[in-house]
């Protein structure tokens, strides 16, 4: 279900804030299509910091494993990363579907260490929205459909007061891969 309790602008604002604080950079230096690694100087550990901040803010769990790791677990080892540590054709095709325009720089055969550079501010926003959109119709505690926002970034049950429970990011990535695979038979 696409939730509308937390507006996209709020997510954009919080993502920008998490990036500015996590990377300790100047406000205003973050554009939607900035690559965190290429343009903002992030390293892999910085993603943990940024994700942690966002998880605390929205009460969600973002993906802990990369989409390539999930592909390998689901479709077999070396299905996404070949024996030389390079991106396979199939994985590149899957990533392009996932990242749209952002994935334009993806090439089969590229070093997988270069893949994370495709993550942009926009793709982090999408990741957060994706998890927020897993908001169930009804409260899992009391069954009421009475979601209300709290502090602009949390969703609470208006009936019993429990916070909403979302699907975690890793499960969502796996679901998405499963659906895409069924539709397009890439692997």
């Amino acid at each position: 279900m696409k939730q509308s309790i937390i507006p996209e602008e709020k997510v954009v604002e919080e993502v920008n804030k998490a990036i500015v604080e996590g990377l300790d950079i100047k406000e205003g230096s973050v554009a939607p299509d900035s690559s965190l690694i290429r343009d903002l100087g992030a390293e892999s550990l910085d993603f943990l910091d940024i994700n942690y901040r966002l998880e605390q803010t929205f009460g969600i769990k973002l993906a802990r494993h990369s989409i390539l790791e999930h592909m390998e677990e689901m479709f077999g080892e070396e299905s996404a990363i070949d024996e030389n540590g390079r991106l396979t054709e199939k994985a590149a095709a899957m990533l392009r579907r996932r990242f749209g325009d952002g994935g334009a720089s993806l090439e089969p055969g590229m070093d997988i260490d270069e893949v994370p550079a495709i993550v942009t501010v926009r793709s982090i926003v999408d990741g957060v929205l994706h998890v927020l959109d897993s908001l169930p119709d009804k409260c899992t505690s009391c069954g009421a459909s009475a979601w209300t926002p709290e502090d602009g970034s949390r969703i609470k049950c208006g009936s019993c007061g429990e916070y909403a429970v979302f699907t975690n990011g890793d499960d969502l990535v796996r679901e998405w891969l499963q659906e895409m695979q069924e539709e397009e038979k890439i692997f």
Partner: protein
Amino acid sequence: MRAGRIESVSPSILLLPGKKGCRESLRPAGNLQGSLKVRVVVVDSDVISLNGIFAGAILHRLQIMRARRGLGLAGGRVESAGRLKDMDKLPFENRTALITGSSRGIGRSIALSFARHGADIVVNHHRQGGSSEAGAKQLCDEVRALGRRAFVVRADISVKDSVKGLFEETKREFDRLDFLILNAARAPFKPIERLLERELRQLVETNYLGNIFCIQAALPLLEKTQGKIVFISSLGSRFYNPAYPLGSMKAAMESVVRDTAESLGGRGISVNGVCAGIVKTDSFKVLRQYMEEIDRMPEGLFVEPEEVADVVMFLCSPAGRGIRGQTLVVDRGLSNSLYRSVAVK
């Protein structure tokens, strides 16, 4: 008894020449603050009795304090555990320590501790550029600012040739090695049954083979100095941690510690380990993702990197000479208690 001779009597009592029965108490300064409190008993003799890791540093401090009060300290030479040495020498002066994975976290803290105690440092890290290289370089600068020598070798411990280069460079630069601290580690956080073959191999190559490559390559140098090896382990070696396959490698390495303590003991090399509790380093950021409630653990149960470093210093000091093949747990009691009342934020 000769002036200034040190008898190893008790770890916390200094016997000083002076007026019989007079008592002084002393808290060591600087980085020794809080790590040790000594009671000083002045006896009618010229014997200074001290058995302990910071002997030199403590007596140096004591000498200054007593001089200020117009009290003398017979002799100017001191050494822990019974030998004579120059008084103002730090315990690890002219010694060399190599700490794998010292660009940040616990390894960095151990390197700084060694430097403060007088040792020259080989800094090692793996990743090229970025915060890793910057961290290694900064550590080097800090060590040099302490008046010690230091240099960085970028090397991947999981690659035998790379390790070979690491020790060749150590030999070339310092021509000696006294302490090898096996600290570098890197592992995926995932349940074991989900590890891909590539991840499994990397797990074993970095965290098991890598350490053994280091031990093998260091032997010729360590043999000459009767050196010491300390492996940094974690509670995962003994207890379940969600998504922590590294634990099995730590268990294997604790076994290697027992094994090599015996097989290398005859060549004068001592091997021990320090098993740390939970330390808030970069790797904690990953751990936190898999142990969600960990943020609610009382602050007092988190171990500081310096607390791990202090025990490494102890094991490398003469005071630790009787310990062989052991892995000492430094966890603020985390693993000691079956029951804890609900953690409060």
